[in-house]
């Protein structure tokens, strides 16, 4: 078993933001998300569910971290704790050195939910403008940002449609555009491409990795697809259920930062994918 506290698993976490001298990279990025001994127990009617157990995770600026694991292993819960939508039972999280609540009130992150969560009385464009209205941006700026982001997700021309006039995948793309319109430094995405077909998914993956590289955003990305995780990530966090915990953290430094769809054919890609798969298998063996 690879415990998160074993030296092997924590090695990617032990990037020396506290011990500058031993940095393996020239300019160590500052920490954006830091979770220490994070546990969360849902008090349900019959028996409490331990959704997260002693999770330690450090995410540096510019990281693209994927959370992967079987259904119910606490990926959404971890994202929600970071976003201050859920209070941990014990342990602590810091976002840019702040509490999650402070970070939320400062609108430091954009959250893409597992479901599109569009407001049916607003047109597509006005859905994208919703966070901008709340931020108090000027009307012209709201329009400009909404159009830019809708174009980015390939939905130009659908501005005046209502969400229920769109397919499920298009709705999810609107919700991505809505999160991007905030222009947050930290993007939290909960299976954003789960409802999309393979080709659109490839297309958006490519867009996302280009956006990430161009803007230097920090991304935390939940997925069920090993290929997607390896393609996008700088690090992959493999989780396992009952109780939800981190099994393995896999570095993807072997892959170049600049990625095209071709890298999926390289042996480095295959090697990382293999390691993720092994980790997932290990997680499943606890069920038997």
């Amino acid at each position: 078993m690879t415990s998160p506290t074993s030296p092997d698993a924590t090695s990617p976490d032990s990037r020396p933001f506290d011990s500058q001298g031993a940095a393996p990279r020239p300019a160590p990025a500052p920490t954006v998300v830091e979770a220490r001994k994070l546990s969360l127990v849902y008090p349900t009617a019959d028996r409490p569910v331990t959704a997260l157990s002693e999770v330690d995770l450090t995410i540096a600026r510019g990281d693209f971290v994927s959370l992967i694991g079987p259904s119910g292993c606490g990926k959404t819960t971890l994202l929600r704790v970071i976003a201050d939508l859920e209070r941990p039972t014990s342990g602590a999280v810091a976002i840019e050195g702040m509490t999650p609540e402070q970070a939320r009130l400062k609108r430091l992150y954009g959250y893409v939910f597992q479901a599109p969560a569009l407001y049916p009385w607003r047109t597509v464009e006005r859905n994208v403008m919703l966070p901008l209205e709340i931020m108090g941006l000027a009307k012209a700026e709201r329009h400009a940002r909404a159009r830019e982001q809708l174009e980015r997700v390939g939905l130009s021309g659908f501005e005046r449609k209502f969400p229920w006039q769109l397919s499920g995948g298009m709705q999810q793309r609107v919700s991505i555009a809505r999160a991007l319109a905030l222009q947050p430094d930290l993007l939290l995405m909960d299976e954003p491409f789960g409802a999309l077909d393979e080709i659109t998914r490839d297309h958006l993956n490519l867009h996302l990795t280009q956006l990430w590289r161009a803007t230097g955003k920090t991304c935390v990305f939940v997925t069920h697809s090993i290929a997607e995780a390896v393609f996008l990530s700088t690090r992959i966090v493999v989780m396992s259920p009952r109780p939800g915990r981190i099994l393995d953290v896999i570095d993807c430094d072997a892959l170049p930062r600049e990625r095209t769809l071709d890298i999926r054919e390289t042996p480095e890609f295959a090697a990382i994918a293999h390691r993720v798969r092994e980790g997932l298998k290990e997680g499943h063996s606890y069920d038997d």
Partner: protein
Amino acid sequence: MSGHPATVDPYRTTLRTAADWGLVALALLALAALMLPLGTRDGAVVGWFGGASGAAPLFLIGVVLAVIAGRSAPRRLAAIQYPGAWVELAGVALALLLPLHLMNEGVDLSAGWGLWLFLVVATLLLWRVMGTLAGVPGWTRSVLVPGLFGLGLLAGWEVLVRGFGVPAILLPAPSRIAAALAANAPVLWDDFRQTVLVSVLRGYVMGCGAGFAVAILADRVPFLARGLLPLGNLASAIPVVGIAPIMVMWFGFDWQSKAAVIVVMTFFPMLVNTLAGLGNSERIQLDLMRSYGAGYGRTLVKLRLPNALPFLFNGLKINSTLALIGAIVAEFFGTPVVGMGFRISTEVARMNLDIVWATIAVAALTGSGFYGGLALLERLTTAWHPSMRGR
């Protein structure tokens, strides 16, 4: 007999090409009607043909020609779908005019079984035409068909009441009610202004406004909701006739007591509906607002109130009817000498039932106008809601 399934378009078969068995059955019934009398005049039986019946054969010929023309018309003429249906409709109207003509001639229709059978045939013909028109989308289906239906009912009422000589004290004909409406227009307008424009509007705005405001408060203060909701059930069981005299004692004869009755009747329906509406937002929608750092007020305005709109309109629509009933009933227990309830109670005592019916007509029109206006507003503002889409 009815060899045509509903899906078969009756206007595709012309008289030349195929038999329409439903129409054949109607024609047979009409033939039977021709054997029976139209009515009596001065004790003598009046038949369809011969000098006594006046222009009756002309009406008959007109109807037959209209039906034949309607059947042979093309399916579509320029922008008009089923032009034949309109021609047949004219035939039906002509048939309904026959009894009015006969009554003008002084014929007593109460024993005119031939005429009544003929009118049954006309009604069945109208039924078939309406069935066709109801299949035409747009204005025809949503406005014209219900309108024609209402007109048909009024025509039936008029012909039956006058044909059988029902005493006006029991049920006046629509034309008599309309005449009373026109003759008493100034009085009825004063009643309308006092009851609707003063009492109902003020009471309605106060009752709905208070229900809404308290619901917003109760949403923030949970014990209020828990305490008030059971009271709502209690209040809905209070009889108006019990509360109205008390309110008249408390607030006097003028509009204030009527408004008070309306407030009592409308407060809880609005409260209950608003509370239900405010609880209608999904968790993920609320989480989204939270993730934007939006506070209570913004979440209320941008998410929870729009989500509550269908519930709010439900409350407003229920209350529009309740308010009108409340005001009219409350006026039975004391008013300045004007108002719809006052008018009904005094004119009933004087056996002036034409005015009573005219007032009832005003109340019915007001109520449906009020309700219809709200329903229209609802359609405009909640077109996004699943129950409204694609209508």
